[in-house]
């Protein structure tokens, strides 16, 4: 059974129809990658899953439960974390305050915090610094750390490598590999090499519709298919 299931999801933003027909299944475990060109509807898909925009018609099922009409906060409490494209960190709060806000109890699980500090040492070094003063890469680390400070069933991550230095991208890939051992990740990414190195399953979205879904291995081996959907080999 899939962990997350989107069925014929259609989302309008104001008077614009952004998603026309999005259906795919995210299996439990590993990294599922959602690919697509700019403006294809990838971010809207993640936001619709989180309830930040309401899909109508269509449905979103998580762990067998219909979450289509649920409030964002209730969806998050089911164990879905969201790392938005703009990172969504709270700049005036310290690194530790950003993290503690993401815990249900208001206290840190020491083992999880140690794991986060091992993954992202900068967050331990700057734990009392206000988050706005961090570099772009450190902010992205904080955003991901906030998603894993508590056990989650699914993490939605939107373009985590955007604007980051190659060394940070490599560190991020390592972190995602480790996180994916215990948590399912739905990753939206434009950097195909990064996506290929992580993804087990994938879907391509174009003009608000899923135009391809399958295994990443097969997609990575088929340059004609990549060219058709992503225009990569030109």
């Amino acid at each position, binding site marked *: 059974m899939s962990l997350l299931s989107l069925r014929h999801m259609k989302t309008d933003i104001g008077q614009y129809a952004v998603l026309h027909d999005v259906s795919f299944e995210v299996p439990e475990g590993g990294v599922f990658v959602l690919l697509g060109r700019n403006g294809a509807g990838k971010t809207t898909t993640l936001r619709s899953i989180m309830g930040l925009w309401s899909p109508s018609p269509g449905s979103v099922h998580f762990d067998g439960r219909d979450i289509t009409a649920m409030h964002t906060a209730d969806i998050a409490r089911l164990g879905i974390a969201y790392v938005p494209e703009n990172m969504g960190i709270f700049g*005036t709060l310290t690194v530790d305050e950003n993290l503690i*806000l993401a815990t249900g109890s208001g206290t840190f699980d020491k083992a999880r915090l140690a794991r986060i500090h091992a993954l992202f040492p900068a967050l331990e070094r700057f734990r009392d610094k206000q988050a706005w003063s961090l570099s772009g890469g450190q902010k992205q680390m904080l955003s991901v750390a906030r998603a894993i400070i508590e056990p989650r069933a699914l993490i939605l991550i939107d373009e985590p490598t955007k604007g980051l230095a190659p060394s940070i991208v490599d560190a991020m890939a390592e972190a995602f590999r480790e996180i994916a051992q215990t948590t399912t990740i739905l990753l939206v990414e434009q950097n195909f090499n990064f996506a290929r190195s992580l993804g087990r399953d994938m879907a391509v979205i174009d003009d608000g519709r899923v135009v391809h879904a399958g295994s990443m291995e097969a997609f990575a081996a088929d340059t004609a298919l990549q060219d058709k959907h992503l225009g990569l080999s030109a």
Partner: protein
Amino acid sequence: MSTLSTTLGRMGGVNLLPFAVAAVAFLLIGAPSSWVTLTVAGLAMGMMLFLMASGLSLVFGLMDVLNFGHSAFVSFGAFISATVLAGLGGWLAADSWVLNSLALAASYLAAICFGLVAGWFFETVIIRPVYRDHLRQILITIGAMIVAEQTILAFWGGTPYSVGRPHFLEGSWIIGDVSIEIYRAFAFALGAAVFVMLYLVLNRTRIGLLIRAGVENREMVEALGFRVDRLFIGVFMLGSALAALGGAMWAGYETLITPALGAELMIVVFIVVIIGGLGSIEGTLLGAILVGLMANYVGFLAPKLALASNMILMVAILLWRPNGLRPAVK
């Protein structure tokens, strides 16, 4: 230039502004005794404005709600407090600071309770249907302000209403040739105590952390599993109660109040919120103190400019810092 800027930043940055304004005023006024009196009056006025403005600032920062009806809580707070004080006239006039204090506390408590209940009603019935729609928010909250003003007119009449002051807050302390009105010192102390309390709640509690995060990015707080709309009701009620308390203190300051009191103060309250930076309690305090000091200093030095002084201050600050002195979002 950058060295000067860094040094000033280390010394307190924009927090030094009230001191700079006071120092310039000291040079212009010349007479130290007048300067002290005006400074105390400015600080007292600033603290009362802070109480009225803090809720408005948080409400705007947290939910992007423009509440022009905020003045209703100020007006009602003033009239309810004045009515309770009138009812407890015996305690008020008694030569006992205990009875005086009880009368004052009862009047403030009545204003705060009204603010809490009316704030809940206002948020649930008037504000909630117009979330995310600024035009309708402006129209409906201005409408509510007019209804509130007319309700006060119907209950208390149009003639100025006299407000009693507790015996122990009457008069002035004379220190050398400096005269400090006791009520002003009291208003300053009470306002400062409320600020410290608010500061501790916002910076030392989990609910405060949520409010600060919500002011910055409401959507992300919800994505972390918190219902900001429910948090907002609490903040709205608190803001309304603080506005009512500010109105009650202002009533004692003016001693003669009219139904238009809240509406008249609203312009200044909005200036405070804009100068301070939306959603920031520290910014609101800074803005309120600056406005209070400027109003008193300019009123003394150039009375004809008194009305325009705060507008000029706002324009100058916004030209320098378009997001206000200490905006909640960086």
